[in-house]
């Protein structure tokens, strides 16, 4: 037994000296992550420092005034109204269709060619750039269906955005439904429930928080979209909504917060820079709030599930 006569102490296995290379690598990786944090911080600081004075000076007038070519009078009232209406369209068009599609794909569809085709198709739709959806909106909702939508109208824009976020709603809802344990369904079928009863009474309640997260994320994505609406006819520049009835406005000219921001950002006057930043603050409050809610919901849901 002379081979192991040397004592196998701890120290012979331990590296000597500090692991500088490892520490440096750790530091570099952390630094990369901090870049994103720094960018986000700089962005918010830049926008707030430019825009806050406008908000402070104008107060609620900025939120209630219509767009104008004169910076001192321009406001985001029409943008806020348009953005809220876009949210309504997404909620009443994309949410039901998206969630029903997800239920079909997860609970009803047999594993056949049609199902696989629909599945591939949804995944492809999710990867189409948003500006291309704008062309769809322009060709179909603005021009081909002019008699129904009233051309370059709020309805045309709202439906375009609903179509744009539909794949996101489907994919996130399907994931939430897939996460429901099989045993729950089997228990339901075992006591004689039909498929719809199992879906409605057992699967949907269980998947609801996940579905909700997905829909909120889709909503916040829709609220921030600009390019598809520019193509599908949102108004850049001023227009009057004056004393129009609500229904007239639905079929009439419209703008949204992001479109207003784009319009102002490309104007040369320096005053509009500050105004743009102020409008961005309003938009960020809306979209980041929606995002934060989605993230909180998801974290809570993951902990439970």
């Amino acid at each position, binding site marked *: 037994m002379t081979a192991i006569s040397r004592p196998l102490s701890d120290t012979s*296995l331990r590296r000597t000296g500090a*692991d500088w*290379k*490892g520490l440096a*690598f750790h530091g*570099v*990786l952390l*630094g*990369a*992550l901090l*870049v*994103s944090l720094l960018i*986000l911080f700089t*962005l918010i600081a*830049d926008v707030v420092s430019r825009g806050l004075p406008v908000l402070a000076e104008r107060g609620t007038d900025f939120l209630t005034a219509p767009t104008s070519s004169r910076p001192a009078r321009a406001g985001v009232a029409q943008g806020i109204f348009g953005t809220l209406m876009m949210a309504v369209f997404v909620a009443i068009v994309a949410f039901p269709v998206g969630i*029903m599609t997800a239920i*079909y*794909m997860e609970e*009803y*569809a047999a594993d056949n060619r049609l199902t696989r*085709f*629909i599945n591939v*198709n*949804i*995944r492809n*739709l999710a*990867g*189409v*750039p948003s*500006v*291309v*959806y*704008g*062309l*769809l909106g*322009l*060709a*179909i909702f603005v*021009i081909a269906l002019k008699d129904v939508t009233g051309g*370059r109208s709020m309805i045309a824009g709202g439906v375009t955005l609903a179509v744009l976020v*539909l794949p996101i709603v*489907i994919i996130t809802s399907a994931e939430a439904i897939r996460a429901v344990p099989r045993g729950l369904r089997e228990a339901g079928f075992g006591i004689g429930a039909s*498929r*719809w009863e199992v879906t409605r009474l057992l699967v949907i309640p269980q998947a609801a928080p996940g579905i909700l997260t997905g829909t909120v*994320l889709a909503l916040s994505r829709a609220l*921030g979209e600009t*390019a598809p609406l*520019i*193509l599908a006819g949102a108004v850049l520049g001023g227009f009057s909504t004056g004393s129009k009835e609500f229904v007239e406005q639905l079929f009439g000219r419209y703008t949204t917060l992001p479109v207003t*921001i*784009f319009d102002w*950002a*490309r104007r040369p006057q320096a005053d509009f820079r500050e105004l743009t930043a102020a409008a*961005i603050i309003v*938009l*960020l409050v809306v979209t*980041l709030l929606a*995002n*934060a809610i989605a993230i909180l919901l998801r*974290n809570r849901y993951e902990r439970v599930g």
Partner: protein
Amino acid sequence: MTNSGPSTDRPLSVSLVGSAARRRRERLVKVLFLSAALVSVVISALIVVSLIGGAVDFVSKIIPAQLLEDGWYPRRDEFGLLTLLAGSLLVTGIALLLAVPIGLMSALFLAEYAGPRTRGMVKPVLEILAGVPSVVLGFFALTWISPEVVQLIDPSASDFNLMAAGLGVGILTIPLVASISEDAMRAVPASLREASYGLGARRITTSLRVVVPAALSGIVAAVILGISRAIGETMVVAVAAGGSGGSQFTIDPFEQGQTITAAMASLAAGTDQVAGSNVAYQSLFFLGLLLFIMTFALNQLGDVFVRRTRQQY
């Protein structure tokens, strides 16, 4: 079959099928859900049909020489496609130079170094960044990145420039690259790491020699899908790269320029009269089709690599 007892002499088959009303409702629900699922197929068909229709109209109205002009000025009937392709390539390239290293390193940190608590604090930052509307990033690129970063490198750079736009697009691409490659790294089985640690490897060695090679397909997928995202990004470029109304051919990132997407936004935003039957209007659909084909091909390729990671483990 003989009855085993008096209690089951009633035939069971009738009660198991259920009432006709219940079966009708089941069928109705299924048909309803199937038609919802078919909506997405209809949408795809409409996208393809409207793009091809408009693009064919466009191609039939121009002569090929117009596509080879030295600039993109649709209202002057100059459709120099190379101008836009060069712009898109430049912006995408700059975006990737920022997004790929930052995204991959962030992913490696989140997958290999961060504990659950750090992860819980840091991951939302990337998610919030992903949720910033692109027009906001465009404004940031124009008002901060351009003067504070780009003009620091090259003081003679134009206020609107492709470099600032590219960096802005890159910022938007970081979360996507990070999230896909992190998923791939986390999918690497723990046993591989344990084997590596068991051989006495340090964490840096395990990360770079075991986890990264094992997750390579997913990392490639992240880069490919990042390219697709960057090519399709519109508003950052439309706001920060200038060139509204048209652009001269350029490969200088410190100059104004246009990408395929920005040209579309600028065409639509320039005047409200673009919706008509003129050639400039139809060039929108030609560009849309081009963009659609490019991103579609990239997404398919990316999917192949994503699937490869899934099959491996």
